[in-house]
């Protein structure tokens, strides 16, 4: 995707959401927009309906934990299959209370992706039809992909040093 098209897309977005665009980055040629969390669904709906932008395919959706900023980001990656344009939109939620509206109203496929994000990061998607854990066990109390959760289970007794004569 070349520079002119990226500028065009940014233009389309700032036409309506001038004050909500936090910043625009292009890492490795991939247009990334950091956006205000309040209006994310409006933006995606607008890009879906827009006659030029036509971002009507949700490639993926995932969470990212930034412990330094005490933030959890949700990354939406959209694809315009007609012109082959891709865009990444990020919103930043507070770590202690990550709540954002669901995208299932626009893309049916967002259902499990949001469940996965809830499962691993604890992001609560309001209005989601069935927000339960999906890959982890139901009685898990932590959100394992957050950075403060260590990789190994700290309650395990069989991996203590004395078991290995240390």
């Amino acid at each position, binding site marked *: 995707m070349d520079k002119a098209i990226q500028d065009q897309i940014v233009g389309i977005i700032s036409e309506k959401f001038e004050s909500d665009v936090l910043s625009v980055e292009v*890492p*490795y040629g*991939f247009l*990334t927009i950091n956006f205000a969390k309040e209006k994310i669904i409006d933006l995606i709906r607008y890009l879906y309906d827009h006659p030029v932008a036509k971002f*009507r*395919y*949700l*490639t*993926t959706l*995932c969470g*990212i*934990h930034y412990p330094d900023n005490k933030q959890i980001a949700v*990354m939406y*990656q959209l694809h315009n*299959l007609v012109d*082959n344009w*891709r865009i*990444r939109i990020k919103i930043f939620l507070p770590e202690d209370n990550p709540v954002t509206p669901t995208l299932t109203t626009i*893309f*049916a*496929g967002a*259902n*499990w*992706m949001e469940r*996965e994000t809830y499962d*691993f990061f604890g992001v609560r998607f309001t209005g989601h039809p069935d927000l339960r*854990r*999906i*890959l*982890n*066990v139901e009685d898990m109390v932590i959100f*394992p*992909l957050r950075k403060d959760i260590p*990789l190994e289970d700290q309650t395990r007794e069989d991996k203590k040093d004395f078991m290995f004569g240390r």
Partner: protein
Amino acid sequence: MAEESIINTNQSVEEKKYTTLNLGPTHPATHGIFQNVLTVDGEIIINSEPTIGYIHRAFEKLAERRPFYQITPITDRLNYCSAPINNMGWHMTVEKLIGAEIPKRVDYMRVIIMELARISDHLICNAVIGVDTGALTGFVYLFQFRELIYEIYEEICGARLTTNIGRIGGFERDFNDKAWAKLHRFLKEYPEALKEFEKLVKRNRIFMDRTIGAGAISAERALAYSFSGPNLRATGVDYDVRVMNPYSSYEDFDFTIPVGLNGDTYDRFMVRQEEMWQSLSIIRQAIEKMPDGPHFSPNVPDFYLPPKEDVYNNMEALIYHFKIVMGETDVPKGEVYHCVEGGNGELGFYLISDGGRTPFRLHFRRPCFIYYQAYPEMIKGTNISDAILTMSSLNVIAGELDA
């Protein structure tokens, strides 16, 4: 099975009770470990509730503790029917991040391996559709060629199923003569077997009656559910990553993207069948045009392990070897997304690097996980035997589903 309805009663329709049927977690017809709790009225499915995650192995968390080259074996275990595609998708993601230039020969070698993997993936899927419709013969015919493909992998990298094939920056060694001989044998013998298989099932009345209309999904719904790969193409949308965002020199090859019309089991079968022919043609073109050159990129010594004799005789090679194995190489900061056309669709790697020895965050876009959520909608109102068929034609791979 909790049989709640009573046959031959004079209860009125309002009091009719449905049966709850557990399909899975371990059921021979689901070809993997996942559960579906079906609510059935006789044989008609009223509702289904999929439960997944039985073989979840926390790959995304594991990846945050591993140096880049140690993540390749994790990717093997996503879609284990076409592990080399996952491996190379990951290598290409890292190469994109570190800005490595890859020689043409490596690209072509990768294309050969990836298309072989695609054939082995589609071969299993289509043969199993045959098995689920009651045609075991075709499966036995084709399966020996999957074995041959695995032997080719074995010649190239030493492993068969979880291949860990190639390296960041190229291949550990060039294809040897045995690999070439086996590849040529495959190209000679497989088309005949595939033709025979097609004769057996493609226009078979029983097979067609069984599969046409079973588990259909419209293009609109498929796009809303973010389908990709053969399942999306069966609905008539010609989205293929190899053409849309060519990687590994796919733009050099001449091939067509087959599409279906109705998005039913028969169309999915036919799309996969045609893709195998296209893959064979791509492999032939790659062999024909195979350029000379090194089998690895010489400009990424920080990532590509030096040859063993250099490690023992050359100071710098030893340093690089040590640095790579200990995972102490510096990587640039950045965010990359790279996608490849996997056996099941767009396999994406979203990698965030903070400059450390491991990824800060690695997210796999697993096509299986994304399209399997449409399964309840696809089987609603059909009978159980069609549901089994729909599942096998979607090619749901538990490893990719659960990560």
